[in-house]
């Protein structure tokens, strides 16, 4: 946030030295407590089995090893989970971007009857937990013989992604001045040309951010795919869920698998963090 400059915008009048020391200590402690579970995942993944299953925990691995990662990758359904997850995510995100972009364009650029109602529906559906919709979606897929198929799950994820996609893209399109369209049309552009030459290039960054966010959502999902599909047609998150058993979970390989599964999400998330924060709180309605 306020990365630039030293303590810019921070009040310094009337602050005691001891208070500052307290605050700094508190801040460091907070950071350590927050990061500890994340560190522990990493720590567990790097330890051999006897150090993981030790009554006296090893806070630093005594004999670091990558064995857990190889046994996770070799485990049943891990690689198929990776491929399935990528395929489902790609289908859902692509479809959500195409449909969402057109819908967002309509809402942002054209005035039509019921436009405000559609905005309300999108906002509401975005807030309805998808789990509530899972029952009818499951029965619909069952009717179309699309349970236990990658396409069926991709369809459900499309429903999951669409509200957010439309909402964010609408914000980006609304940010392009209408005068730009009009100027282009006066200069002889058709509506289609306005779309290809002005709106699409200018929403490029928005499309990338939305796609990344969609990827994270679809990649992280596990309840729906676990309900609809058999283990060989699931993704990595569901794989993690199934490898946690009530007794005798192999925590080393599980945590290694968790790191592999989380890695793309963490990288993507850190790259678009700014957009997510503002998207949730400031995607305000214009007009």
């Amino acid at each position: 946030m306020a990365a630039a400059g030293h303590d810019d915008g921070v009040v310094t009048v009337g602050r005691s030295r001891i208070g500052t020391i307290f605050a700094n200590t508190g801040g460091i402690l907070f950071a350590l407590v927050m990061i500890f579970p994340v560190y522990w995942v990493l720590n567990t993944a790097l330890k051999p089995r006897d150090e993981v299953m030790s009554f006296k925990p090893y806070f630093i691995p005594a004999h670091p090893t990558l064995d857990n990662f190889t046994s996770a990758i070799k485990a049943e359904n891990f690689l198929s989970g990776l491929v399935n997850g990528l395929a489902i995510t790609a289908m859902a995100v692509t479809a959500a971007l195409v449909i969402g972009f057109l819908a967002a364009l309509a809402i942002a650029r054209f005035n039509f009857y019921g436009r405000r109602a559609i905005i309300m529906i999108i906002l509401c559906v975005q807030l309805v937990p998808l789990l509530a919709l899972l029952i009818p979606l499951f029965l619909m897929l069952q009717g179309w013989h699309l349970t236990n198929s990658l396409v069926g799950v991709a369809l459900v994820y499309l429903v999951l992604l669409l509200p957010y996609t439309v909402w964010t893209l609408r914000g980006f399109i609304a940010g392009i001045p209408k005068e730009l369209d009009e100027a282009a049309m006066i200069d002889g552009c058709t509506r289609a040309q306005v779309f290809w030459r002005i709106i699409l290039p200018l929403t490029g960054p928005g499309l990338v951010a939305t796609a990344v966010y969609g990827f994270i959502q679809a990649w992280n999902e596990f309840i729906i795919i676990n309900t609809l599909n058999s283990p060989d047609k699931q993704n990595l998150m569901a794989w993690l869920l199934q490898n946690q058993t009530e007794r005798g979970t192999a925590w080393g390989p599980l945590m290694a698998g968790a790191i592999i599964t989380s890695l793309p999400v963490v990288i993507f998330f850190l790259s678009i963090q700014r957009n997510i924060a503002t998207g949730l709180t400031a995607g305000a309605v214009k007009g």
Partner: protein
Amino acid sequence: MLGWPLYRMIVLSFQNMRLRELLTGLTPSWVGFEQYQKALTDSAFWGVVGRTAAFTVVSVTVSVLSGLAVALLMRRVHRRVRLAMMVAMMFVWALPQLVAAQAFVWLTDSDFGVLNYLIDKIPGVDYANHSWFVNPWQGWTLITVLVVWAGVPFLAISLSAGLTQVPKELLEAATVDGATAWQALRNITLPILKPLLTIVTTLSVIWNFGLFTQTWVFRAGHPEPYYQTLSTYSYTQAFGQARYSYGSAIAVITVLLMLGVMVFYIRQMFKIGEVD
């Protein structure tokens, strides 16, 4: 496309869809409000509603207050400490919900968990092999800690961005005029922060009200009755017991209960839009 599943859910809640209808493809019979009647007269259902509401109130209060405290702390600390806090929170925020929950299951493992080991170190306390989910109060405390831990980054980072909007001159003038830190917070900072606080609080309510992943993972897919909340209850009724209509009715009630909170969020979003 978005409205259709919603419509189907409502239709379903007025029917009686069981496993037989699912397998044969027969149209389920219409039963009117029977599913709703069944839910609303069932004490188990009201227990679930009460539990969900209590959890939401407690977890949102703790999360928002912690988030605000962390945001205020971030304005006070050294630049490097602030950076460390930001980095730690970013990683927590980025972590998938399922992975975070599994990490907590492992941390609180009764035999090899670090938490029991550390608590056991306190003199006079025996926490070796302590199981956290036997006593529902302890189990719920753990679930709340996990939810707050995962929720604080979003809250603290959003609120600290909001705090940069508070004019420095105003706070300095107040301090010079002899206002205490508490007075400055109450009378200057909080009123300016209010629109943002409304949005992040309603979002937290919506998210925590739909609690699913955390209990699901902690209880390995079989939450005991005293760990059921509305979403897990609806799910287990529908997919565990093949009572699809009953599950839908519960989902509809859940959405209706949330609607009250959602109105706040939507109104605030529109309000900000009009100001822009």
